């Protein structure tokens, strides 16, 4: 019986193809918007999580206030600071402590030159975070070296440098010993990494850091986990500087913060997309009211030949549900295409951006059933009106 009902509904939809397709288009646009935004949002969250995983959650960072963009670079504050790292090394549970100084000195590599982002980094640190600062070619910086460099993939390409090549920072010549694997964070892909001592000397800022990273034991014992070590670090730093002007955070806390930010962004955009879905639902309702009006006489005839209220109700509900479902299927496909399209075209507009598209079958299934329900729900009031029509009145309708 349901099958026959479905056939009947499809027949009616096909009887007015233009109007059906336009109504479906309304749903399609809404679903596509939701899917595209949510997929991109999920992809973004996934790649942020991946970055942090590569970095490890057992890291405490010290930086100046005022990080201003997403990605690993967010850890950098807007100002550098002076700090003696030796006491931090003694905290129990701490495995490695090292600093990073970020500057933009004058770089020249043959005919290419300019002020470029340069990270002075303790070689020990780079090795400690070998999972994150992973050389794709060559090797990482070694302790004791002074005039070697490891380059992010983008900057290496821009400067036309590879392992073994030489280039100049201000007045000193450096040799490229490694190229880093590509990461989602453009700050890394555009980084020139040199031993921090050399950079500090070059710019005349001994003991200055933009960022200090502390790696704690992987599985912190009670009281030695990253969070409690961070607390201890905060206390010591404040004591040493005589003021509380630095941020001390664990990577876990930072991940939560960023996930929250992305989540809020996603909810806001998703909300806007949901509104367009709602408008699609209103479109279905409008079409169904028109359909009921047009087919009033037909409804009267069906009732005269024995149709009960639920027969009429189902007929119209299935019709609107179908429009929702078809709009949902096509909208989901369109949404994915849009998301993939944005993924591939975004780097053309903002170089260095890397977006991921998160495909989740659960979301798809959810959206499909939601769009069917939205269609049926939008069709409910028109269908109920149709079912309630008194047969004689419906038959007399001109």
């Amino acid at each position, binding site marked *: 019986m349901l099958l026959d009902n479905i056939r009947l509904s499809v027949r009616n939809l096909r009887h007015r193809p233009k109007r059906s397709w336009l109504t479906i288009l309304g749903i399609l646009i809404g679903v596509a918007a939701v899917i595209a935004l949510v997929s991109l949002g999920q992809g973004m969250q996934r790649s942020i999580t991946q970055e942090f995983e590569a970095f490890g959650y057992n890291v405490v960072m010290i930086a100046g206030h005022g990080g201003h963009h997403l990605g690993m670079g967010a850890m950098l504050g807007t100002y550098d600071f002076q700090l003696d790292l030796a006491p931090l090394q003694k905290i129990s549970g701490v495995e490695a402590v090292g600093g990073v100084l970020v500057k933009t000195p004058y770089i020249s590599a043959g005919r290419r030159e300019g002020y470029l982002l340069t990270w002075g980094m303790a070689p020990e640190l780079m090795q400690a975070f070998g999972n994150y600062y992973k050389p794709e070619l060559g090797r990482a910086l070694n302790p004791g070296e002074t005039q070697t460099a490891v380059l992010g993939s983008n900057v290496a390409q821009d400067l036309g440098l590879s392992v073994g090549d030489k280039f100049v920072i201000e007045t000193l010549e450096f040799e490229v010993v490694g190229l880093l694997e590509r990461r989602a964070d453009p700050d890394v892909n555009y980084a020139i990494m040199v031993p921090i001592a050399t950079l500090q000397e070059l710019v005349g800022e001994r003991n200055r850091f933009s960022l200090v990273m502390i790696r704690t034991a992987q599985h912190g014992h009670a009281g030695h986990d990253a969070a409690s070590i961070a607390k201890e670090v905060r206390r010591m730093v404040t004591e040493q500087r005589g003021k509380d002007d630095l941020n001390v955070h664990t990577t876990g806390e930072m991940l939560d913060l960023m996930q929250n930010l992305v989540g809020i962004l996603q909810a806001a955009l998703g909300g806007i997309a949901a509104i367009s879905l709602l408008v699609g639902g209103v479109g279905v309702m409008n079409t169904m009211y028109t359909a009921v009006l047009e087919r009033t006489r037909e409804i009267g005839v069906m*009732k005269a030949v024995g149709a009960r209220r639920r*027969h009429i109700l189902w007929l119209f509900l299935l019709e609107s549900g179908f429009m929702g479902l078809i709009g949902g299927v096509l909208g989901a496909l369109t949404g994915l295409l849009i998301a993939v399209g944005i993924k591939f075209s975004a780097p053309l507009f903002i170089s260095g951006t890397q977006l991921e598209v998160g495909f989740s079958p659960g979301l798809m299934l959810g959206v499909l059933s939601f769009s069917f329900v939205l269609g049926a729900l939008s069709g409910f009031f028109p269908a109920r009106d149709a079912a309630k029509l008194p047969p004689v009145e419906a038959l007399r309708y001109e």
Partner: protein
Amino acid sequence: MIQLKNAHKIYPMGEISVQALRGLDLTIKPGEFVAIMGPSGSGKSTLMHLLGCLDLPSDGLVQLDGQDVTKLDEDTLAQIRGKKIGFVFQTFNLIPTLTAQENVELPLFFQGVPRRERSARSVELLRKVGLNDRIHHKPAQLSGGERQRVAIARALANDPEIILADEPTGNLDSESGEAILKLLEQLNRESKTIILVTHNPEAAAYAHRIVRIKDGRLLEEVFNNTNKGVAYAAR
């Protein structure tokens, strides 16, 4: 057997109201062929709607096979219509998106008859009304006479006891009209109760009894003796 006792039908129209039926008594026995005649607006269609359980009287009683239908709810009435009554309308009232066969299947569908059975029954009925080569035509692809025959096949779908035909020949030329009347006559011979509303005396002549109404009241009943001769039962 259908019985109307002191049936009133009032259509409220804002301030005023229209009295379509004003106390009508009528009994129709199984197997009868009754014609209902009367001027336009006299209440013939209104009467048909009551006889066919499509509508309920404002006052009075409608009994179908001894059961008072005025207390029944809409869905029960729908089921009674589907099982016991077949309607044929002046304007055919076929569903334009469905083929002839599907139109005939519709009443079976609403009674929950399985698909195979529906399909066999609808083909058989279309053959009976002489449309075996028009099974897959849409109403728009059929002539008026053919459409009305599809409508009759549809009315017969659930093998009802009673066929109600409201001016079934009103939109047809005399030849197709006659074919329809012959079909109704044949159905009556097969022991169906036929109730026919018509303006046309020639059409009414097919009936065994002619009921004349005016202003919602019974005017007279004329028995049309098939062995010629006409008996008047004036009121």
